[in-house]
């Protein structure tokens, strides 16, 4: 039964990856002109090529607008239409937190949305925001791909439009499947199917209801489960596949994808230990996939997993390991890890470091380090700060190691812009404030680091790979990349894992 389930999941995920990949490719190539024209129409200067920092500036401006609008909408929802439950506006702190959560693609919420947010806020602030921010992630991906192809980065506005064009049809297809299985999409309950589909396709991970995808309102049966899972893994992997295709490096990209699949399979096997029920595999895969891809949605409460079963996801989440990569820009993150491993490998065979024909110098290493080490450093700082604070100590006192795990998970989830959480961890304003700061800094560093890294790569002159260069796609290099990624994550966050989940596991 378990094996059959795993097989069905495997086949549908691979199939989805392929079809979504074809679609992304189609938009990236064929529709780029209409997208450009639309962009041009929207803004006069939308076709002007941009420098990395200008490009980044646009992405941040759009994110900032989304944050401001979401925050304002939620705070003033009582004055806005489509509020059948007559819900009051959110307080400023939760409203700001919500704005940042949407704008940073985190979607960590301290409340049950169905009883706190009006249908208007859910649909037009959170739902639309998720798609826009998803498009921002794809715009970052386009910049990375262009830099790797040694083309100008292009125009960020046009790229965002392109991102929306990629996402919307995928969202509608998944929404149709969900709706056919009974997920609500009507005026009285709201566009739940559309919202859930958008949340999965963009990797936002937001839930229409507090219990998220464990709720039958969003994910009622096996078919919706498989469809969602296919998109959950398929969309991130499709971007990876398309990148490999565009760069004409399918061997290397397939090798890395195989590594990611192997790791996911191992992690899923570990996580499903002790889980009961027919959907154990899908729940375990869901947990580990969303921990890696920064999606953050959950198909089973974290508390349901065994204390050792949660360990792989803990490592992935806290260290921000892109296994699988977040939708779009996550491709850059995987490549940064790969570049770091190649860097060491090159040195060890006595060649000055280069990867995929790009020289690796301090100019690329610094933004790369910011993107990877930055969020880890702020998680460590925040852990020290929050756990020694009065509300932190109170949680340690009342809930012990489990409470520590919940807090650490929340901090990691904020800084890595993931969004999943143990139930009700944002109980204190201090936690909420910390989460706000972490979400913002985490996003700034990851997105900024990746874009500036790509900008630096794009500046390099075209240099084909020397025949004597290190064999990047060989099994030795790929194994080293995988081990280095895991070891790198371990090096920075092991103490946190030790003092939370490992403590729980040992008890």
């Amino acid at each position: 039964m378990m094996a059959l389930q795993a097989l069905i999941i495997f086949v549908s995920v691979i199939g989805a990856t392929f079809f979504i990949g074809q679609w992304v490719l189609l938009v990236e190539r064929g529709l780029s002109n209409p997208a450009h024209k639309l962009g041009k129409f929207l803004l006069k200067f939308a076709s002007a090529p941009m420098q990395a920092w200008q490009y980044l500036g646009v992405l941040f401006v759009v994110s900032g607008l989304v944050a401001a609008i979401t925050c304002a909408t939620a705070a003033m929802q009582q004055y806005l239409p489509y509020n059948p439950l007559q819900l009051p506006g959110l307080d400023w702190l939760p409203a700001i937190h919500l704005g940042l959560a949407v704008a940073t693609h985190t979607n960590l919420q301290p409340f049950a949305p169905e009883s706190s947010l009006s249908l208007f806020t859910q649909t037009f602030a959170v739902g639309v925001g998720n798609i826009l921010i998803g498009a921002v992630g794809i715009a970052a991906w386009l910049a990375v791909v262009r830099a790797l192809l040694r083309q100008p980065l292009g125009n960020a506005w046009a790229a965002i439009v392109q991102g929306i064009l990629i996402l919307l049809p995928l969202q509608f297809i998944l929404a149709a499947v969900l709706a056919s299985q009974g997920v609500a999409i009507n005026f009285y309950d709201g566009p739940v199917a559309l919202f859930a589909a958008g949340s999965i396709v963009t990797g936002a991970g937001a839930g229409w209801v507090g219990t998220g995808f464990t709720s039958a309102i969003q994910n009622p049966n096996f078919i919706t489960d498989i469809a969602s899972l296919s998109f959950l893994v398929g969309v991130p992997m499709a971007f990876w596949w398309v990148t490999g295709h565009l760069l004409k490096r399918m061997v290397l990209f397939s090798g890395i994808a195989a590594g990611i699949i192997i790791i996911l399979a191992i992690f899923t096997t570990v996580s499903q230990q002790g889980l009961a029920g027919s959907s154990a595999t899908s729940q375990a895969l869901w947990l580990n996939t969303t921990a890696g891809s920064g999606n953050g949605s959950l198909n089973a409460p974290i508390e349901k997993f065994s204390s050792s079963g949660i360990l792989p996801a803990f490592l992935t989440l806290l260290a921000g390991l892109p296994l699988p990569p977040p939708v779009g820009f996550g491709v850059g993150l995987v490549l940064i890890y790969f570049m770091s491993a190649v860097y060491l490998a090159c040195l060890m065979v006595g060649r000055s470091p280069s990867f995929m024909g790009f020289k690796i110098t301090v100019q690329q290493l610094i933004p790369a380090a910011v993107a990877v080490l930055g969020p880890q450093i702020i998680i460590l700082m925040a852990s020290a700060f929050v756990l020694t604070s009065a509300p932190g100590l109170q949680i340690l006192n009342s809930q012990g190691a489990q409470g520590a795990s919940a807090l650490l998970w929340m901090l990691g989830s904020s800084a890595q812009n993931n969004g999943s959480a143990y139930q009700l961890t944002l109980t204190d304003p201090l936690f909420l404030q910390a989460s706000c700061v972490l979400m913002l800094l985490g996003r700034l560093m990851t997105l900024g680091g990746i874009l500036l890294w790509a900008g630096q790569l794009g500046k390099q002159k075209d240099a084909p790979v020397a025949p004597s260069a290190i064999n990047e796609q060989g099994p030795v290099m790929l194994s080293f990349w995988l081990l280095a990624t895991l070891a790198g994550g371990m090096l920075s966050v092991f103490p946190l894992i030790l003092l939370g989940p490992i403590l729980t596991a040992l008890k």
Partner: protein
Amino acid sequence: MKKLWTVLRLTAEGLLPGAALGSPMRLLVWTATVVCLGWASANSLGWVAGNAIQSWTMAGWVSLTLIFTVLCEAIAEGLSRQQTSSLRAARSSLNANKIATADPKAPIEKISATSLKAGDYVIVNTGEIIPADGAVVEGIAMVDESALTGESAPVIREPSDERAAVTAGTRVLSDWIIVQVRAASGESFLDKMIAMVEGSKRSRTPTETAIGTILTLLTALFLVLSITIACLGHAWAQVKDSPSPLGVISTVGLFLCLAPTTIGALLPIVGISGMLRLMKSNIIAKSGQAVEAAGNVDIMMLDKTGTITMGDRQAREFYPYGDITEREFASQAQLTSMADTTPEGRSIVILAKERFGLRQEQFDKEKQNVVFIAFTSVTRMSGVDLPERKLRKGAAAAVEQWLKNHNLSLPTEVKEWVDKISMEGGTPLVLADSVKGALGVIALRDIVKGGLRERFEELRRLKIETVMVTGDNPLTAAAVAAQAGVDRFIAQATPEMKLNYIRQLQAQGRTVAMSGDGTNDAPALAQADVALAMNSGTQAAKEAGNLIDLDSNPTKLIEVVHIGKQNLITIGALTTFSLANDIAKFFTLLPATLATLFPSLSGLDIIGFQSPTEALRIALIFNALIIPLLLPLALWGSPKAQKTDGLLVRHLLVYGVGGTVAPFAIMYIIKLL
């Protein structure tokens, strides 16, 4: 004794706060030590609570890391100073006899060498030391360059293209020369040599800079990490109502154990010793980049003459064509070589003299109305224009073209001789007359240097191709190439061809190294990624190259490649080892130090420490000891790579897996002691 004193003095200097500002890493280690010592003192004085003896022990072990870091650097610095002491002595007391014009009778102004400017003229007499780098413009002298090259045989310096360059610090042994200064004080060869190896002025390789930056970032991460562990430990202790597992000193100790102190301490040494190795091979690197690029070389371009072969291609045979006698042919050949100063040209004159007793003087009468045509790399011919006819001698292709211009052709028989001589590895020179056509062929022969075949084989295992560059025709080139065992050759090479060939290879992503000495090599040298110019070469070549070989031995390019690779491998090995160590330290230290709070964690403590203090102490001892233990690796570099296949796996196993296992083993041994 003096050396020991220097090292001790340098160590003491390195411990001063000023020296700590050199790198962020060093600053943190230094601060950590000061904090520990301060805290231990406060314990003794009773200002803060704590076990004073324990604090002092810990502070002692913490200091050891700093001391070993500084000591290692002092040793490397001491070695480089020893190497440069003679150079410094040569530089310090230089005086110059400045003259206004390049006239030996011009009035002399005695000034210090440091105030010389480029373009100034100085006169250097017997026994004096040349005060600045420059070119001889007047006079001729024997110069002792042993201070620079270690070579005791004096060399002649005169105002000719090849022999004009003189270097500051060398001594005139006889006669006098007037030198026009090329490099002002501070930019001379001597200055560059000293700067190459000495401390702060040293030119760092891009990888050294990059690794340095990464280490700083990692140090920041581990600093935050240590503080976080201490804070979390403190929080849990508060909840459990027990003392904090990590006090100030323990936190500092933990940070020192986790921070990449090993590679941080050894990185500058790897850099210095890499430059020292180059210097010991008598090579000057103009930039760190050149040394690093050497590690990547895919293609090595070597001149045939003088590099692959002994260089003295000598005339061995005359093959007269048609009804001309061998004596007549020899006489004509000698005539065309009269103005040819190349060794080949001279050897023709000598052969004619040896065989037929033909002497130069016989032609003196004719000299009045003849014009000698010198050899150029473009025409690839030399010869003589007589009143009624012209004579040319050169490569078959060039002469054939010349004959064609005179409506004559090269006879098939001559072409066959040319091919035959070429196939045997000889160099055929065709002699032709503008009236009679081809007169015959002169066969020059050269010998391939011993041991080169094996060296090229060695390079092939490192995936480096060798390309032989020669002005000879393709057949001659192929024969010599086969004999020497090079992978490819470029025949009939002109300076443009060499330049284009390098560009073409670089466009394919390859790193090209070449050596050269002539002005015509300069464009190609400037284009090549690694360009080794001969010190005996022309100023243009020396300026175009990024490495200069003082011994003027072009095959040293192979050494340079090895040194470049070794540098990178050593840095990579030490970084991997250092980071792998951290993984091991994590798994030993954290469970052990936190076990007082959480007894369940002691199950993860593989070594079985008795107390958190013991764990930290042993980790600190390991941390300090590993620096001098790895010093030989940093100083002498990783073993020379023999081949690239399997190198990555081997190094990953040795330094990655080894680096993870070694700390467990060594810490266990320390614990037993």
